């Protein structure tokens, strides 16, 4: 089987349709993951042992099991208890929840990396809990973790093909449907690969910049 450029141009518009959905899912998933992660990180630090423990185990469970199965679960099992989500919404929730457990670790590391001296200085300045978080800890914790967060969002982007399993017509699904129609795998799959590679290489540049911009904090 030979590479066929005409075929490439023919299927391009279809694939671009898929790209749009892929990007949409990634963006929405990232926003959700950023929020879920902060929630988990704070809950795990909670004074309430039961909350901290159960959130901890839940996060471990999500982190230790494949996103693909979780997506099946959200899409096919949840309707049994009356939660019927459109494919894209189910996909975004799956991505957000799954990656939220990763970003939670980033938040945790970011917070732990603020030296103990800063907590103590805040106390010596008689700042209360809320003021310590908002004025001292988070402003120092968040900038250094931006690159790590971005890293996970790029990883999430590369996992969006999983959404094809729950009928979201993202890039991979479009490519498969093209392959199904014309019985040719080489061009669509290679194009999908090239597309991911290009975005990834661009994101490497973006990451370098983020690292440079936010990576360290001068003390």
């Amino acid at each position, binding site marked *: 089987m030979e590479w066929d450029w005409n075929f490439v141009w023919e299927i391009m518009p279809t694939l671009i349709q898929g790209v749009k959905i892929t990007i949409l899912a990634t963006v929405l998933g990232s926003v959700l993951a950023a929020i879920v992660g902060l929630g988990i990180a704070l809950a795990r630090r909670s004074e309430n042992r039961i909350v901290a423990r159960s959130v901890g185990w839940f996060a471990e469970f999500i982190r230790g099991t494949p996103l693909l199965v979780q997506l099946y679960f959200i899409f096919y099992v949840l309707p049994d208890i009356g939660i019927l989500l459109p494919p894209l919404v189910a996909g975004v929730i799956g991505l957000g929840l799954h990656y939220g457990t990763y970003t939670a670790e980033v938040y945790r590391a970011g917070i732990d990396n603020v030296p103990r001296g800063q907590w*103590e200085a805040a106390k010596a300045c*008689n700042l209360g809990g809320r003021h310590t978080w908002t*004025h001292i800890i988070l402003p120092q914790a968040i900038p250094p973790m931006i690159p790590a967060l971005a890293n996970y969002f790029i990883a999430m982007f590369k996992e969006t093909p999983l959404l094809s399993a729950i009928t979201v017509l993202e890039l991979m699904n479009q490519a498969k449907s093209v392959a199904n129609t014309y019985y040719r795998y080489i061009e669509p799959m290679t194009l999908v690969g090239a597309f991911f590679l290009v975005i990834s290489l661009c994101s490497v540049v973006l990451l370098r910049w983020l690292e440079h911009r936010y990576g360290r*904090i001068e003390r």
Partner: protein
Amino acid sequence: MPAPIIKVDAISKSFGAFKVLDGLSMQVMPGEKLALIGPSGSGKTTILRILMTLEKIDGGHIQIDGEQLYHMERNGQLLPADERHLARMRQKIGMVFQLFNLFPHKCVMDNVTLAPMLTKGVARAAAEKRAMELLDMVGLADKAKAMPAQLSGGQKQRVAIARALALSPKIMLFDEVTSALDPELVEEVLNVMRKLAAETDMTMLLVTHEMGFAHDFADRVLFFDRGRIVEEGKPDEIFRHPKQERTQSFLKKIIAAGHRV
């Protein structure tokens, strides 16, 4: 005779199985300047951190300015202090750390004004005016807009002192405030502290390895060893005529290592 401003009564403190403070008692008079000296690991830092409520005590009592620090009296009963009580007590105490612990993401001015504005609701203008006075006092009025990373160690430590003073505490705690500094920068910080000691009637507790400075600065010296006060007295007594053998051998080693007393 006035009442002591700090009254430490038989407190003990362990880290795991290791007993750092063992039934320690001491009293400090208002306005007194106290130097805490002693070998590494003897608990000097720990007692300061306990007074600043950075560590909890396992037993005993502490009174600050006539009030219990770690306990509250409610209906004649002594209960463990809650966060509100601790916050109120902390207003009386300020602390300067060995490693400065400035807030690296805030400029010098913001470091000094943050706490008064947030905890006492001082208006920005008033807070900045007071901050400028304090920065002037420590000789850094021209660095108000600088970020901590742009300062030398000595300058950082002087900012840290100004920051602690901004809350006008009655008691100031200093933990080896010069030991992280290059030798050439030590003097500028000690000068500020001398000035402070001379000009205010604040109570000051100082942990230091600079025996010469401790000698000039302190009204009274406490010598710590293994979580207890082994000897105390006027600087001249302790440094020139230590009674305890442990004190003598400690001072001898320090002097041999090249420090002036």
